[in-house]
Each structure stands twice: as structure tokens, then as C-alpha cells.
């Protein structure tokens, strides 16, 4: 990561500068948040190229609408809301053609933790996408989003509620259903393996 990123002002200040047309401030925002935004987009769309497109589109929207950011929430919450909305639209469109075009994964029916411990290497993006799809693809959209934001992206229940514009109790209820489904899915996969 660029060491200059750490010496930049807080993100909320950078957005204010970007709203006044400061491209250097905007670049600082991109460099600071691109990896995390990418991780979120990737976990929703499960495709490296599509996730890049989502992040690019999200930052362009940040640039276009920087003046709308009021600073009442964290910049990251605003950015992740934008990323989530774009990624969801893309995932919906992709789900219609995925059956025809997706290249089958070569990952065997082993667990993600086993895959890590055997090779000692980090799991590749491709295997990761296959695993996320395998355990969460059958979830209803709301449950899947809650699972991705809370359990994979590690956001707080309050942040997830803000991003999805639902109540915290709705987030928890959906989390319960999602986690129960995932437990059963993992058991099925273990039995098959």
C-alpha cells in the first residue's frame, strides 16, 4: 500500500475536498478504500473482473455525488452502500447467464480450512468465489446480503442495518436463518465428500 495514504487527512475530510473538485484528495480515497471495497464486491458477485467493474463504478459515483455526503455516517458506510447496490444489480443480471457461461470450478468438495492448511498458501480468489457460491447461493437475497456483510465482511449489525436500510432486529433474524442454512449446507457437503 502507498505509504502516503496513511498521512492523508481522514476520509470524511477527503470527500469534502473531492466535492470541491480536488482530484488528489479523491485519489487518496480510492487508494485507501479500494481493497476493502473490492473484497466486498467480490464476495457479492463472486467474480474478479466483475468486482473490479463494481469498484470502478462505485468510486465514479462517489466522485459525481461527493457533495451529497453529509458526514452523518462514516464514509465507509456510504461507500459500502454504493458498492452493495451496484454489486447486487450486477449479481442479479449475472445470475441469469451464469448457468450458461460460468467456467466450472476445479475446487473439490473439501473445506476451505482444509484447503488452506494442506497447501499453506492463501486460498485463490477463484476457489474463494466457488466456496462462497457453494454455501450461500441458495439463500434468499436479503439473507445472503446479511451473511456477506456481517460474517464475511465483518461489519457490525448496526452498519449492516444502515447499508441495507432495515432494522437491526431484521438483520439478526436474517442472520439466524442464513447461518442455519449454511450449517446444513456444510453438513451436506461433508457427507458428500
Amino acid at each position, binding site marked *: 500500500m502507498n505509504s502516503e495514504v496513511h498521512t492523508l487527512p481522514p476520509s470524511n475530510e477527503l470527500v469534502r475536498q473531492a466535492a470541491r473538485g480536488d482530484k488528489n484528495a479523491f485519489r487518496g480515497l480510492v487508494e485507501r478504500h479500494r481493497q476493502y471495497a*473490492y473484497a466486498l464486491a467480490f464476495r457479492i458477485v463472486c467474480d474478479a473482473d466483475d*468486482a473490479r467493474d463494481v469498484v*470502478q463504478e462505485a468510486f465514479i459515483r462517489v466522485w459525481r455525488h461527493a457533495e451529497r455526503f453529509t458526514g452523518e455516517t462514516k464514509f465507509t458506510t456510504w461507500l459500502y452502500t454504493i458498492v452493495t447496490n451496484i454489486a447486487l444489480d450486477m449479481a442479479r443480471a449475472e445470475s441469469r*447467464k451464469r448457468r450458461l457461461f460460468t467456467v466450472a470450478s476445479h475446487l473439490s468438495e473439501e473445506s476451505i*480450512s482444509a484447503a488452506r492448511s494442506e497447501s499453506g498458501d492463501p486460498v485463490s480468489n477463484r476457489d474463494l468465489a466457488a466456496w462462497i457460491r457453494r454455501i450461500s447461493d441458495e439463500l434468499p437475497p436479503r439473507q445472503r446480503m446479511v451473511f456477506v456483510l456481517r460474517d464475511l465482511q465483518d461489519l457490525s449489525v448496526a452498519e449492516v442495518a444502515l447499508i441495507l436500510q432495515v432494522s437491526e432486529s431484521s438483520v439478526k433474524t436474517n442472520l439466524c436463518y442464513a*447461518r442455519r442454512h449454511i450449517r446444513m449446507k*456444510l453438513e451436506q457437503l461433508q457427507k458428500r465428500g
Partner: protein
Amino acid sequence: MRCTEARKVIYLWRPGEVPEESRAELRRHLAACEACAAEFRAAEESFHEVDSLRRAEPLLDDPGSLTAGIMREVEGIGRRERLSLQHLPVPRFLSSRVRLSLRFALTLLVGVLLVEVSVDAQRLVKLERRLQTQNPAGGALTVPLQSGLIAPSETLNSLLKVAGLRPDEARTLLDDLRARYPRLASITIDDGLDARERAILDTEGKTFLKEFEKLIRTGGKNE
């Protein structure tokens, strides 16, 4: 605590999701209810699996090029905004009627240029339709198109994926094509096309497209 409540609290296992009193109640319930205790054990295993999945963060490949792409788009937005009718540069000493006519003429000129770009886009649409009918997977292809005869690399990449290539294979192949057509690769669509770039598209561009169509037909293998 009843079983229905316990089965809910079991799955709200991460810090801050339920108050500590509920956890204490759950522990007491599990000690007395074997069915819920069995579900708790099964759930714990899945929690570890999800933890592993969370730690395996997808890594952004070549972050510099992503930033460069975003900044290019942002520059483009600035240029397009400057092209609006009110901002067209006309000398202030002219009368308001002349200034208006001049602005109108300039707008017309910009319109003609835009039509030319869209004609190029039409040619690309036709190419994509041809590829669609030839691609072995069949079905609709919903790759977003952008203006210009040569599709941006994302579109080419998607087309190659349709032909059955893995993303890394598609990327290697595109890198190879870019290396063999350096003049084409140097053209930036965002800036519009000048006469030199149009000449390159008319010659090298056509050869490139033929080769690319062949690659799609053969699933990325050179014949």
C-alpha cells in the same frame, strides 16, 4: 429459556449480537436439553468454517491499474461537463444573437462527431452479434458496450470467457494480443478518435478483429 428461543440465540454467536444474559440463559438451557446441545455443537463447526472464509480475503490484483482507470474516467467526466452548451467558448465582444448562433453551430459540430463515434459503436454491436451466433455456449450475451470500434479490454475479456477460457487464460491471451498490436493498444477511447487513430483502426483494427473472431471460434487456440 425455551427451545425455540435457544435455537435462535445459538446462531447469534458473534460478540454484540445478543446480551450477555441471553448467553448465560442459553448455557443453562444447553446443560439441560440434549437436542439443543447437539444443534449447538453442529453450529459451532460451521462457525469455524465461516471464520476461515472471512480470513481468506479476496485480494485485488494490480490495484494501480484500477486506480488509473478510475482517475481516467473522472478526467473524462470533467471533459464531458465542459462540453455542455453553456460552457462552449465564444468571444464575449460578439452580440448576444451572434454568440447564440455560434454556440448552436458548435453544438451541431459536436453532435456530428458524436454520431460518428456511435457509428463505430454500431459496428462493434454487429461484431458482438456475429460472435454471439458463433460462440459454442450459445445464449444471450449481455456485455455492456462502450463507444469505439475496438472494445475496451473488459468487453474482450468477457467475450473470451464466453468462448470457454479461464479468466487467467483470457488475460494472458489479451496481453499477447496487446503486445502484437501496440499501435491499437495505445489508442484511448476516452479522448475521442483523431485522424491517425482512425487510420490505425481501419488497417490494424480490422486485422485484429479477424484474429479475435477466429480465437472465439477456436476457444482461444491459434489454428
